[in-house]
Every structure is written in C-alpha cells, then in structure tokens.
C-alpha cells in the first residue's frame, strides 16, 4: 500500500476510534476529529518520517479504543462508565503468582546469587 493510502487508512481508523471512545459526548467527539484533521495537515512532530507519523496515528487510535473510558455523573457521587467491547479489561491473576525469591533459589549474597539467573 502506498504511503498516501496508508495515511488515509490511518486517518479513517482514527476517526472510527473517536466514535468508539466519545460516542456519548458530541463536543469532545468533534474536538477530537478536528484535532485529528489538524494533525494530518500540520503534524505535531514534523521531524518524524511519514511512516512514523502513520504509526503514531494508528497508536493514538488504538489508545482511544482501548484505554479511554468516559464517565457521566448520574447523581451524587455515582458515575456511569462507558465501558464498551474494545475497552482493555485487565485481570489481577498475575499478582497471585509467587515470584521466586533469592532465598528460594538457594541464598543471597557472597556468591549465593550464582543461580539467580537460571
């Protein structure tokens, strides 16, 4: 794909991502889109190569899809979060795995750490 086409594809990807992230918030949606258009015309990092600019925009789009969740205040301290299909939902399983400590690997200092990287 030519640079021109992949730039346009990245722009399309970005516009779609703003829809996913800001579907409930027209003001921010329009602001994000106009910012994205400005970025296409006057890139904020002009020293990057076109390919790097394209990658950057695709990463912005991915970030918008996965890592932006808008909340709307309902009443008092309650907020409704717009968590959608593409929101990145991590789990906490990895913290439950015990890490092998120095002692478990047969001692710490004074040469005892020789097996540390096995």
């Amino acid at each position, binding site marked *: 794909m030519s640079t*021109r*086409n992949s730039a*346009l*594809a990245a*722009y*399309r990807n970005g*516009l*779609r991502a703003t*829809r996913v992230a800001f*579907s*409930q918030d027209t003001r921010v949606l329009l602001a994000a*889109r106009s910012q994205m*258009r400005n970025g*296409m*015309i006057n890139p904020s990092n002009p020293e990057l190569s076109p390919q790097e600019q394209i990658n950057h925009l695709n990463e912005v789009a991915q970030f918008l899809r996965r890592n932006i969740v808008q909340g709307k205040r309902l009443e008092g301290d309650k907020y*409704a*979060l*717009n*968590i*959608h299909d593409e929101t990145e939902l991590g789990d906490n399983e990895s913290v439950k795995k015990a890490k092998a400590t120095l002692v478990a690997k047969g001692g710490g200092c004074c040469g005892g750490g020789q097996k540390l990287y096995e």
Partner: protein
Amino acid sequence: MFSSLLRGSTIALRTASARSALRPVAAISRTSLVSPLRAYSTGLNRDDISARVIDVVKAFDKTTASAQVTADTHFAKDLGLDSLDTVELLVAIEEEFDVEIPDKVADEIKSVAEAVQYIASNPEAN
C-alpha cells in the same frame, strides 16, 4: 454426549449473563444509540439508500455551498472535496448505515453513486 453438549451451553449462558450483569451501563448506552425505526430493516430500498446518502453529503460541513447533490455527484470533481474530506464523508456514511467499509473498497468510492452501490451490496447495512 448430548447431555454434555447441553451442560456446555448452560455454562456459556451463565457466563454471558454474568458478564452483562457486570456492565449494565455499557449495555444501556449501546442500545440507546440504535434508532428503533431502523432496527430490523433487511434489504434496503435503493432509492432510500440514495436519499440517505445524499442527506449525509448535504449535512457534511464543507458541502453547504454547493447544495446541488444528486445521485451522480462526484465527491472531488463536483464538491471539491480533498482526500481527507472524502475519508471524513465516508466515515459519516458508515455511521449512517452502521457498517464498516473495508479500506480497499473505501479507497475506490469517489461518488454518491459508488457509495450507494456499496451500501446496496452490503447485507449488514441498515
């Protein structure tokens, strides 16, 4: 074997309902976006598609000056849209019909007629 199939399906159901119970707000906001009038329309009428595409093109910011939009209008030649405008317009059309136009196809769509043609050929459009 049949009973194990059944068991598998109830588990699947249960996890699905548990997931939706966890995220009730997301479910509500998504349904509120869908217009009830269009929810179940299969096979769209070509004239309707054409009228809706033309409405989207007319509503597009940069085309207010040239109000003459017909089924034969070409985005670049008749409306003076550049490539960025065309991408924006196609995303607006995607949102109107609730579809996602693949990049290769989208690069080829340069007129109202071509957009109508694609939407008519896409069974998921509504």
